[in-house]
């Protein structure tokens, strides 16, 4: 226990736009223990939902997380529809798929930008977020808003995709895809990034299964799960796509999975726009009978799970929400112990944590002295990249 020191990060920290309180217990440069306190985002949504009607719940559930603003409502609608097998019209299923894949695209681009910023590639940050804007414009055209779409309802969707918007969507997607090719080459072929991210923060396959990790975090460790393929919902049963997996489980593998998934998303959107036929977008269910329902969908960070219990009234008796980061976050402890302090930030970012989805905080019970301030950690991460760059330039 000699020379142990605690580094508190947070709750308000330039690395993360969400508040959380971390404590890394270090010996020298190596992390030996970690604890996180969450709860700074806990808004008691499950309790609020019990006092609202099913229609109102969808709007609240949308605001669980800004990035998964289409995933949670679809999962909630699927859970309510599962109670009594409410049918969703075909066109509505395709529109749900399109909004879901557009969200996956913008979420992965957002992640790519933030990850670039954490390791000192600010150009990647600016370009990834700049090329996120066409996706936000498409969302505004389709749903009426850049975030918080208000698009989904039990039994269908609220708004249709007009015929004249289809060519607009395809033009702007092409714009994004060209840049995705460029970003893919820039990121995946860069020897500095290989040296910086390979072998860092490895999550083994056994640990991923034991912690029930989800999404790209699990797929990067070789666990082949994807709710779009395993539990098909919306129109995923009618489109063809690949599930991207890697074996190494390190930060680089997680980056590769996310970048390649973006191309799959673009392909799914094109297939949906080609196959969508005219028809109703809402089956207008009149009542929800007593029962229980489960909705399982694949959000950008992993599988999102909603359980709804109804007693025949217009409000849920119980609404359980489980976001993917809830299962992925405990794997951070597994991956960061033994790594250096300068890698802690990128390892954390590689899970793509969405604290507001998780509504959690972890408290570290350390009473050791503060070694490094919050800004020092991001500086350490960027300095490590600069050192590796210099090594490559000299060689």
């Amino acid at each position, binding site marked *: 226990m000699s020379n142990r020191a605690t580094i508190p990060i947070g709750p308000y920290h330039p690395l993360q736009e969400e508040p959380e309180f971390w404590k890394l217990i270090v010996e020298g440069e190596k992390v030996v223990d970690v604890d996180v306190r*969450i*709860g700074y985002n*806990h808004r*008691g949504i*499950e*309790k*609020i939902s019990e*006092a609202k009607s099913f229609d109102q719940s969808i709007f609240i559930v949308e605001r669980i997380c800004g990035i998964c603003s289409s995933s949670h409502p679809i999962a909630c609608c699927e859970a309510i529809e*599962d109670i009594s*097998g409410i049918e969703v019209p075909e066109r509505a299923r395709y529109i749900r798929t399109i909004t879901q894949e557009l969200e996956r695209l913008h979420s992965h681009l957002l992640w790519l930008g933030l990850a670039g910023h954490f390791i000192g590639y600010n150009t990647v940050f600016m370009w990834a977020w700049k090329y996120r804007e066409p996706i936000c414009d498409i969302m505004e055209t389709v749903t009426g808003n850049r975030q918080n779409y208000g698009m989904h309802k039990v039994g269908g969707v609220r708004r249709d995709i007009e015929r004249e918007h289809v060519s607009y969507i395809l033009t702007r997607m092409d714009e994004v895809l060209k840049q995705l090719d460029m970003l893919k080459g820039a990121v995946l072929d860069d020897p500095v990034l290989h040296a910086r991210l390979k072998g860092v923060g490895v999550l083994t396959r056994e640990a991923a*299964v*034991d*912690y*029930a990790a989800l999404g790209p975090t699990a797929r990067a460790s070789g666990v082949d*799960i994807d709710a779009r393929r*395993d*539990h*098909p919902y919306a129109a995923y049963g009618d489109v063809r796509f690949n599930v991207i997996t890697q074996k190494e489980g390190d930060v680089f593998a997680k980056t590769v999975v996310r970048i390649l998934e973006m191309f799959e998303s673009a392909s799914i959107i094109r297939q949906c726009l080609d196959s969508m036929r005219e028809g109703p977008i809402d089956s207008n269910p009149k009542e929800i009978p007593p029962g*229980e329902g*489960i909705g*399982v969908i694949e959000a950008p960070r992993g*599988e999102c*799970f909603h*359980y709804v*219990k109804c007693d025949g009234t217009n409000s849920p*008796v*119980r609404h*359980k929400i*489980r976001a993917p980061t*809830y*299962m992925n*976050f*405990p794997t951070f402890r597994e991956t960061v112990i033994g790594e250096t302090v300068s890698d802690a930030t990128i390892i954390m970012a590689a899970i793509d944590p969405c604290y507001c989805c998780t*509504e*959690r*905080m*972890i*408290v570290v019970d350390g009473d050791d002295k503060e070694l490094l301030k919050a800004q020092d950690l991001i500086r350490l991460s960027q300095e490590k990249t600069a050192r590796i760059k210099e090594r490559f330039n000299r060689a």
Partner: protein
Amino acid sequence: MTADILIEKVHGRFGDRILKTEKRSAKRVYVDIYPKDIVDVTRFLFKDLGLRFNIASGVDDFDGLEILYHFSCDPSNFVVTVRALIKDKENPHIDTITTVTRAAWWIEREIHELFGVEFDGNRDLRPLLLPDDWPKGVYPLRKNFIVPKRDSRKT
């Protein structure tokens, strides 16, 4: 393995320790058990059959506190929900399943602080979400905890 085969295997392994199984659809199976059997059932589903632990949810019902453990069978597209009803609401106890899977680590802490359920064998039941000065014995997700509606004009 389909939902029907799973129900057969569960009955074959546990016999009359299972209170009820219900196949609501090809994708949804509900199994009712006694709370004392939860660790054995979890071990069977997670380790022997290779299902993935999804999450656990607590429900405050009239006859007691129900804890539902949801498991997914990804290759065959169905979700199994194991329901354990704890009749004693004053002093609810159930065994921890963290000995079988670490994935239940956080959810047991959450159910402990929001419903008041004791997970026997789990030594880390620190609060996860609520502030430290939250009064003891007050469980927000129980039905007897009513959030007063506040008028935004007056606060």
